[in-house]
């Protein structure tokens, strides 16, 4: 009997030591975990509610008249797969929604050389608002498709996702330069903007280098600038806007903890950037009562004066008291404790104005008495994926990192492997 009991407790101990929560040094309280799970589930509902049932295309925003955002559609693909794995929708239903969306993207959605137009008509998939064939938004769509395919290997979904990825002519988008162009329009051809400096570009370049059909040379990864800056002792390879999302989007899919880019670990970089961003807003706490220890998150979002690239330092540092809850939440893998506290704070203090059927609305500004009434698809997407990584055993990372394209990118760019546990241990402290 004693032997049996010992075995049982040992098994229990073993099980807990490998449970998702234990991967992080910070363990939220059961109430906080429950809240985070609720936020993730509510955020997920955005994609089932604001995606067209017939085309699968997802609206850029919950606002009436909003067109489809191809990036939000990519997040929706990931969301359905996650939703099914979490039991929020059935596996068959998720498969159906993913299949419909991929068929639309593969056969009907407007594209140029495989690059989808940034904004599409919800019903027809045609280009709208004179938008550009966008490289980053296509990358986000492709990433979502490839992730969804990982949940349904060997199926039509898998086949379509690969076809969509393999159709993208990444090399063409370089337009003969060392960098990937931001976009192309039929009217003015290539835009005069390139992904030439650190920001959300890493996922895009990773997919481009790892492409089995139209790969870009590894120098496209090596050449973009890695400007270094400092705020309050936080040394960061920074994005020009300093917006938090730039430090998060690539990390939703790619686990950078074990990757060393010539001395830079971008996971740790994002952690430092998050801390710097938070401290930057705190430095204005005297001016704006909205900023506090648990109320932070400067990132591109809607605000009282429209959509702006809010951000911290190092970087543009645009702020006016507006906070985007998604920004704080989506840093949860970098700063689990601070992000959890922020989530709790936003929920407990501003639930009435800020929390709705689909989780936190995009932003708020207490000083101006302004509360967003809408949700943005990509902000919902990053929140969902980051929470999923944190709450559910890094499931997105695990699935995405096994993709041949990702392996090829790591191999060709010489991103050296290093112990993942080092990064986890440090990240857990905050």
């Amino acid at each position, binding site marked *: 009997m004693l032997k049996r009991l010992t075995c049982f407790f040992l098994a229990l101990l073993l099980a807990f030591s490998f449970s998702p929560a234990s991967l992080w040094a910070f363990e939220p309280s059961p109430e906080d975990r429950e809240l985070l799970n609720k936020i993730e589930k509510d955020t997920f509902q955005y994609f089932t509610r604001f995606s067209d049932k017939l085309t699968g295309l997802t609206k850029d*925003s919950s*606002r*009436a*008249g*909003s*067109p489809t955002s191809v990036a939000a559609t990519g997040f929706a693909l990931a969301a359905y797969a996650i939703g099914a794995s979490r039991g929020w929708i059935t596996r068959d239903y998720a498969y159906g929604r993913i299949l419909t969306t991929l068929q639309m993207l593969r056969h009907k959605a407007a594209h140029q050389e495989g690059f989808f137009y940034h*904004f599409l008509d919800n019903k027809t998939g*045609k280009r*709208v*608002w*004179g*938008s550009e064939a966008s490289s980053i938004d296509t990358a986000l769509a492709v990433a979502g498709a490839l992730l969804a395919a990982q949940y349904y290997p060997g199926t039509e979904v898998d086949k379509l996702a690969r076809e969509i990825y393999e159709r993208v002519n990444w090399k063409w988008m370089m337009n003969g330069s060392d960098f990937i162009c*931001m976009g192309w329009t039929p009217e003015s051809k290539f*835009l005069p*903007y390139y992904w030439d400096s650190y920001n959300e570009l890493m996922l895009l370049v990773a997919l481009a280098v790892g492409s089995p059909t139209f790969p870009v040379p590894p120098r496209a990864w090596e050449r973009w600038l890695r400007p270094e800056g400092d705020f309050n002792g936080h040394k960061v390879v920074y994005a*020009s*806007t300093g*917006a938090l999302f730039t430090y998060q989007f690539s990390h939703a899919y790619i686990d950078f903890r074990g990757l060393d880019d010539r001395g830079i670990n971008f996971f740790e970089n994002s952690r430092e950037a998050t801390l710097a961003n938070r401290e930057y807003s705190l430095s204005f706490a005297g001016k704006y009562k909205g900023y506090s220890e648990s109320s932070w998150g400067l990132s*591109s979002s809607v605000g009282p*004066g*429209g*959509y*702006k*690239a809010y*951000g911290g330092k190092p970087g*543009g540092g*645009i702020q006016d008291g507006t906070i985007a809850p998604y920004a704080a939440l989506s840093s949860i893998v970098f700063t689990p404790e601070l992000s959890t506290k922020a989530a709790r704070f936003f929920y407990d203090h501003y639930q009435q104005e800020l929390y709705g059927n689909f989780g936190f609305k995009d932003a708020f500004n207490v000083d101006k008495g302004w509360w967003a009434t809408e949700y943005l698809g990509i902000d919902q997407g990053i929140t969902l994926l980051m929470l999923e990584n944190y709450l559910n055993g890094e499931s997105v990372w695990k699935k995405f990192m096994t993709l041949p394209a990702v392996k090829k990118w790591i191999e060709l760019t010489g991103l050296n492997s290093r112990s993942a546990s080092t990064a986890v241990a440090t990240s857990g402290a905050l």
Partner: protein
Amino acid sequence: MNPNRRRQFFINRPLQTRFMLAVTVPLLLINLVAMGGLYFGIWSKVLDTFSDEQTLNDLVTASRMVEYEQARHTPGTPSFSSLSFFKSTEKLGERQREVFKEILNEANRSLFWKFSLLLVLIAWGTIFISHKIAGPFFRFSQAFGTLEKGDYRARVFLRKLDEGIPAAEEFNEALEKSDRFLSDLKALTLEKDATQAVARIKEKLSQVKTSADA
């Protein structure tokens, strides 16, 4: 005054009425389809697209599009400036052109299919109607051919809904009379008393008027 001028518009009222209907009903259908297609395809969509609510949504979206572009490409630019206002206006104009073009394209596509279907129906209807006229002409022509060969047993038989049934009936009656007349003449030639036969033939022929009569 033109001697051939028509003095009576309706010579055969039922026949002419049927022909009037055969022409005007398809034309009416074409007009209805065109008007309905244009109204529902274009006008109702224009009304919907440019409703107050939709215009407001478009205004907001136009300015959002410009803000997105600024946030991505030129993040340092002030979010509201004369330039952004003009860009929003340009976006809105671009969008409205896009929408209008799409409405016209959709209406044209929809009209194309409706007209194609209508064309098939009208083509089929034309065959049906023309058959009602061409059929009798053909049968009359056949009967005349038979007559030319000297066979007066020929008759014209028409279908129930064919045009010209009364004319065919009158024609058959005339043929029947001619047939009987010629049969009588033929019978007289077989009589033994030639003098009496010639007298009776002369008597019969005197009742008939031909080009040989003065």
